[in-house]
């Protein structure tokens, strides 16, 4: 069998992924997670002294905590299977990446196993987040200094 023939055959056999259905699932589950996040944020505003500007930090921490519990119970991977990017893009996906790596390497010990592999998946998120934030801030600082935009 020639290489092209094989590729032809493969393309005929591979089922077509239901893109539209996947997008809809991701949209609604991601939106649902964000609605929970909004509820947590409102909770912090109503019962504690947080404003809209300051409620972000505890909200993120709480959402990661929820993701941690769901990952530990093995429920988050089911949500991930169903919703795909809808569960990976919100901050809960970041929490899931951290915790699942920790659980996976638990047998190798606390320091070298959990400690060394905790940010194996999520490390790139932290790195690129910090670096891109630095460059965006730098660009904005330059623009403000020139006088194009204001803070």
């Amino acid at each position, binding site marked *: 069998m020639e290489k092209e023939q094989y590729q032809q055959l493969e393309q005929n056999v591979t089922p077509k992924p239901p893109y539209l259905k996947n997008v809809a699932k991701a949209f609604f*589950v991601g939106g649902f997670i964000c609605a929970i996040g909004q509820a947590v944020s409102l909770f912090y505003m*109503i019962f504690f*002294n*947080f*404003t*809209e500007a*300051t409620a972000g930090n505890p909200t993120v921490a709480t959402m990661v905590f929820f993701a941690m519990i769901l990952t530990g119970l093995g429920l988050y991977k*089911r949500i991930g299977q169903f919703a795909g990017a809808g569960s990976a893009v919100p901050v809960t996906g970041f929490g899931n990446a951290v915790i699942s790596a920790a659980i996976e390497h638990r047998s190798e010990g606390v320091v070298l196993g959990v400690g060394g592999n905790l940010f194996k998946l999520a490390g790139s998120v932290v790195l690129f987040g910090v670096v891109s934030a630095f460059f965006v801030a730098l660009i904005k600082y330059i623009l403000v200094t020139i006088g194009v935009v204001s803070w």
Partner: protein
Amino acid sequence: MRLLGITLPLLAVLMLLNGCAEKEKFIVYGSPQNEGEVEALIKEEDFVDRTTVIQYDDSMLVAVQIKPWDKWKKAKLEKKLQKKFDKKYPNKDVFVSADYKIFYEANKIKKDQIEDNKLSDKITELIKLAKEET
């Protein structure tokens, strides 16, 4: 996952129905009575959805909620309103906030009917909270 399929549409419907409840758009609470004037000032701006004004003596706290699509420019609109009020009441200490927390607390002051002697402290407390950044 089937459970999720039932809960999601139900939740969406509940949220939609909740939005239909009619709420008072403009509230003033406190000693100097200049409601009409302030209301006219706010009504000029069509990006404001709901307003609660708390005033005591020379201090005035204007808590506004901005309409959903205009929320992208929240900081700018807040500044615009602040300037407008500063111009209108140059000898008054006006503070404008578009933050939900400040709006919620202002409504709570009105609901609890907090007395005049405590009102001043409450206003300074809320202004301090609104300026907090961390």
